[in-house]
């Protein structure tokens, strides 16, 4: 048995080392944000949001004269908007309905299988989901398209929404449903008019988190939406997205200055969605 003093020192050392290492993990987040702000703020101006990505030539000319690169990422912003909205339209109703089913029938074999498959889809690497959307949409249509991109994104959103819906509905007191049924309301109206409104905060949080998760996805979009140099609203044509533009800028030495501002924009968007979602979750839980 070692002496008390030795044991106390060991205990204290362990505590301080743990705290030190834990606080170190905070560093990357701030380092990344700092780096993006430092290198990216110069490029962010009004044109950045209203103009399409510049051509390599324009960017080269601007670089040679020492100006900031003209143009912006409007084609990426509209593309991301188009694909994320479309993906949400596909994934939200299905996800919520599946979530309702799982919470209403938690123990049937059918629910177990559904839950297992939801986990399977959630665990699939995003690039594999890109391949799937390529096989399902791009190949039959014969062209890369926004539709294919949003199908890929919706497959990624689906399990997240199913899970958050199920968890939220499970937390509601059973008396809520019983009260509704006792008043003579039908099963459908109890679920749609009592349970879903009561669970709204949780559902909304889940949806926001799912959107923020897919918004930064690059890999599946490379295989499905491909990218485009102009603003495109046609869902069966190739479309750009902010992460796709970052990838293009990264591969083009003349446009390299644009990556920081685009990444800064994307990161702010995603992190604020994240923070808003968490705030809603917090408020909702207190009530």
């Amino acid at each position, binding site marked *: 048995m070692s002496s008390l003093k030795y044991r106390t020192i*060991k205990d204290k050392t362990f505590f301080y080392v743990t705290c030190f290492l*834990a606080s170190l993990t905070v560093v990357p987040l701030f380092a990344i944000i700092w780096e993006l702000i430092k290198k990216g703020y110069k490029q962010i101006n009004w044109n950045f949001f209203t103009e399409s990505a510049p051509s390599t030539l324009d960017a080269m000319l601007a670089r040679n004269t020492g100006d900031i690169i003209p143009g912006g990422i409007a084609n990426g912003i509209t593309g991301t908007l188009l694909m994320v909205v479309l993906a949400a339209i596909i994934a939200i109703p299905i996800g919520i309905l599946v979530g309702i089913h799982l919470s209403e029938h938690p123990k049937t074999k059918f629910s177990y299988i559904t839950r297992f*498959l939801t986990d399977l889809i959630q665990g699939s690497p995003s690039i594999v*989901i890109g391949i*799937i959307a390529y096989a399902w949409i791009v190949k039959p249509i014969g062209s890369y398209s926004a539709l294919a991109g949003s199908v890929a994104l919706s497959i990624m959103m689906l399990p997240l929404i199913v899970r958050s819906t199920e968890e939220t509905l499970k937390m509601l007191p059973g008396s809520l449903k019983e009260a509704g049924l006792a008043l003579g309301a039908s*099963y459908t109206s109890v679920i749609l008019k009592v349970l879903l409104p009561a669970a709204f905060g949780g559902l909304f949080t889940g949806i926001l988190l799912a959107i923020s998760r897919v918004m930064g996805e690059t890999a599946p979009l490379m295989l499905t939406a491909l990218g485009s140099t102009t603003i495109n609203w046609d869902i069966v044509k190739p479309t750009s997205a902010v992460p796709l533009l970052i990838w293009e800028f990264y591969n083009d030495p003349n446009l390299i200055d644009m990556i920081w501002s685009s990444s800064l924009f994307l990161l702010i968007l995603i992190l604020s969605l994240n923070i808003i979602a968490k705030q809603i979750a917090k408020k909702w839980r207190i009530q």
Partner: protein
Amino acid sequence: MRDIIFKRLLSICCILILLISAGMIYSLVSGSLSAFGHYGFFQFIGSTEWNPHPDRETYGALSFIVGTLLTSFLALIFCIPFSLPVALFTGEFFRGKKIASFISSIIDLLAGIPSIVYGLWGFYTFRPLIIEMGVNAQGFGILTSSIILAIMIIPYASSLSGEFISMVPNELKEAAYSLGATRYEVIRSVTFPAAGSGVFASYILALGRALGETMAVTMLIGNTNNLPTSLADTGNTMASIIANQFGEADGLKLSSLIAIGLLLFLITAIINLVAKLVIKKLN
């Protein structure tokens, strides 16, 4: 009547999940059949040759399988010294305190950063450090990508394991305290053994994340089609070879890439399944 329709609708949506998963597996398998048919399943997995030359096309997945497993396991090892302290910090030392929820929400935000931004940061900030340390001349490679991967999976590893650590019953710990144990001794001999398999499961889930990571690794691993033999080597992972070559691929090459996608899907599915089984056993 409405109720019946509504209940039907719920079941139909669940069947849709079934169809999506079945469709995923079907598309992957049917897409990879020609590659497996041409080379044979085991030949394809066991070969390190990746030669797109039109006359003597040969494709094998071994280099990429090794690249994927190597980077992911290294990332897992690198992330332990940071994610475990975070889990102890939030689940044991400062459980329920403001500082714990502050730290864990910051770490959660880390999970929100897109893969491509990690890639950029790794490329422009971290890679110069690797070059300076003299690991290799370009700074690309297995080591660089696994360190960035490690940062990316810290949130996944720490949040779940922190939860398991905080779930260890107080009576167990108090019993040890009453015997005169210090906090370190309690953590080592009570908390870890009690929460051990849960912590283990969360690390397996984090590993599953690392296996499928695409963009950051693609930007940092160097993209060479050889079998990596040391940490300083460049290479390719299964995800990064797909990301790099899918766009211009057709015929046998396309099928080989889809086959790699199928293998990646299977590996992550098995890893996730193991983690889920461990967690299920705990409940």
